[in-house]
């Protein structure tokens, strides 16, 4: 793989309500992870930390030619540990549970060019910006997302839906895991954002776009995102990682906007 230089920044905060920060993150270029644990102290925080540890281990001996297998392996090992940890606890206190979401971004070799391989389990999110436009890449594994996909509710209604906190896939789930993967060419991503729902649940996509667009340093941008989530109420742990590809020349030939418009006009527009 050609050497790709990455600039990155990360920030996390327990928020204004919760007592424990159950979010964990990993910055080990070219591996980036955000995990949002659930289950309370010594549950969610441990689960999300286990994900980070497994990706840390993966990053130490990472083979970019087999990125998807590497990531799937790290997920599987984390899943095994979390399930085992949960079972040990449930032996003492029935009903105890621990789980975590995870989003991961790694660089992979695809042919002889570098690409971003992104993976998602749960409702943490991955966004990219291209030509100043923010786009959510990951698709939430949540009840409300399924209702949106089924056309039963709008995304506005999802924000106040009583089941908006219910996710349908997570590490620690006894039914097993089924992560979604995404593969994006390096040049199509000017800036990458990984974040927990403590960010996206508190501030709008527009606000996120504005911060990513106006704050040049990724460290400052991550910081600003988390502080904006706190300023908006900080109801949950908030974590953000921002990654820039250094020296990525603006690829004028990338026609995301044109293609989207073309697709919209041909398929009848976004509803």
């Amino acid at each position, binding site marked *: 793989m050609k050497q790709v230089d990455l600039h990155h920044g990360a920030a996390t905060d327990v*928020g*204004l*309500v*919760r*007592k424990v920060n159950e979010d964990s993150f990993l910055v080990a270029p070219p591996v980036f992870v955000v995990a949002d644990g659930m289950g*309370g*102290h010594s*549950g969610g925080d441990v689960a999300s930390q286990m994900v980070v540890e497994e990706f840390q281990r993966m990053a130490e001996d990472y083979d970019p030619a087999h990125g*998807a297998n590497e990531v*799937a392996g790290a997920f599987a090992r984390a899943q095994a540990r979390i399930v085992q940890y949960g079972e040990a606890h449930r032996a003492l206190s029935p009903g105890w*549970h621990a*789980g975590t*979401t995870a989003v991961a971004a790694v660089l992979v070799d695809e*042919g002889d060019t570098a690409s971003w391989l992104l993976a998602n389990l749960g409702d943490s999110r991955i966004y990219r910006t291209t030509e100043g436009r923010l786009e959510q890449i990951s698709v939430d594994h949540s*009840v409300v997302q399924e209702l949106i996909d*089924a*056309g039963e509710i*709008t995304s*506005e*209604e999802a924000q*106040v839906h*009583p*089941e908006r906190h*219910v*996710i*349908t896939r997570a590490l620690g789930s006894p039914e097993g895991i089924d*992560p*979604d*993967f*995404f*593969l994006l*060419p390096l*040049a*199509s991503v000017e800036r990458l954002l990984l974040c927990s729902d403590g960010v996206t*649940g*508190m*501030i*709008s996509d*527009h*606000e996120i776009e*504005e911060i990513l667009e106006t704050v040049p340093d990724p460290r400052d941008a991550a910081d600003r995102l988390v502080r*904006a989530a706190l*300023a*908006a*109420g900080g*109801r*949950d*742990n908030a974590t953000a990682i921002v990654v820039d590809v250094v020296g990525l020349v603006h*690829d004028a*030939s*990338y*026609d995301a906007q*044109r*293609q989207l418009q*073309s*697709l919209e006009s*041909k*398929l*009848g527009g976004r*509803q």
Partner: protein
Amino acid sequence: MSAQRRFAPGDCYAVVSATAIVVLPAAERARVGALWELADSGASPSILLDSLLRGGLSDLRDFAWMGEGEGTTRLIVRGSATARVSSESGDQILSAASGLMWQEATLSTNSRVRISLADAATAEHSLLPGISRVRTVEWDTSTEADAADEPIQQPIAVEPGAVEPAAVESAAVEPAVEETIVEDQFVETPVVAAPVIETPGVEAPVIETPFIDAVPTDAEGEAAAVDPEPVVEATMSSDSPPAGPAADEPAAVVGEDWSDRDGHTVIGAPTPQFDRPPIPGQEIAPDVVSHPVASLVFSTGDVIAVDRTVLIGRAPEARQFASHDQPHVVTVSSPHQEISSTHLEIRPGAGADHGSAIATDLGSTNGTLLVQPGLAPEELQPGIAVSLIPGAVLDLGDGVTIQVTDP
């Protein structure tokens, strides 16, 4: 709601809900559909405005929005939209003169508003909730009694350029202009959850009251789920009188489990095979097949076996796959940009197409030409899968062709 509404027929669209009217030019058909869907589901005027502005202002040149709530009626006009407001104090013409982003007004009760995007006409037909083709709409603002019907619906005040986002974030804004409402359990009416309005270039002041943490202390995890955590959430309302602590209105209502739900994600029942709605007319393809159904011989010299989805383009993107069915992505160069970033998909067919490769143009800018042996050349329709027979040739533009052969 007893407000009187009338309209004169014309080309423009009026989306009318119980508490709001949005008037858009005839060209905005798609937006009208989306707005009506919201309006029909009971969305508040502010949610309609929010939705209207979601795509930004640059391609939304002309519109009028009028919404009612909390005893006030607000009106916004942009571009060619004008409104004549008649009240006891006389007539007033509202329009966004050149240079203004838009013009906004708060209307007193008992005024009559007449909105037109072009020439006004006499409005004599009665206007009911729904979508109407109009030239002019008239709305008599309701009296105080009517406004009490919908206490939850809180119009979002938008004041062009009032406060920069940075100022909001730093929490340096004096809590002088604040009006607290807090959602009350889960009322059916959609409530604006994030106290933020998405408007490029028009930042609404968002003033948050400091968070009140009433959870005693060391209770963690499960315990926190039980303790009600009162959240006082403020939305902005720039027109409300500088309300101090001795506010006149019943200012704060405290929602109980509102906050908890955000901080307390749980894993729900799994939905093992939730299938996203496929593109109409297409069967869901198998992930990976054991024997390739075809080989693709590219004019660039690449040869790719179709044993799974193959995505072809100038910078192809693959979405939502599992680690075991990662698509082949084939990047082809396109110096004249005739080929789109993710231009064409070829995958093993399902159902009736089992055993053959099928091609789908993914909405490429310049299209894909398909020549099948013995058939006339055809342009692929975006999103419509076509079964390929051996010997078929696909032309993507910029001299890139793909020949389909037996594996």
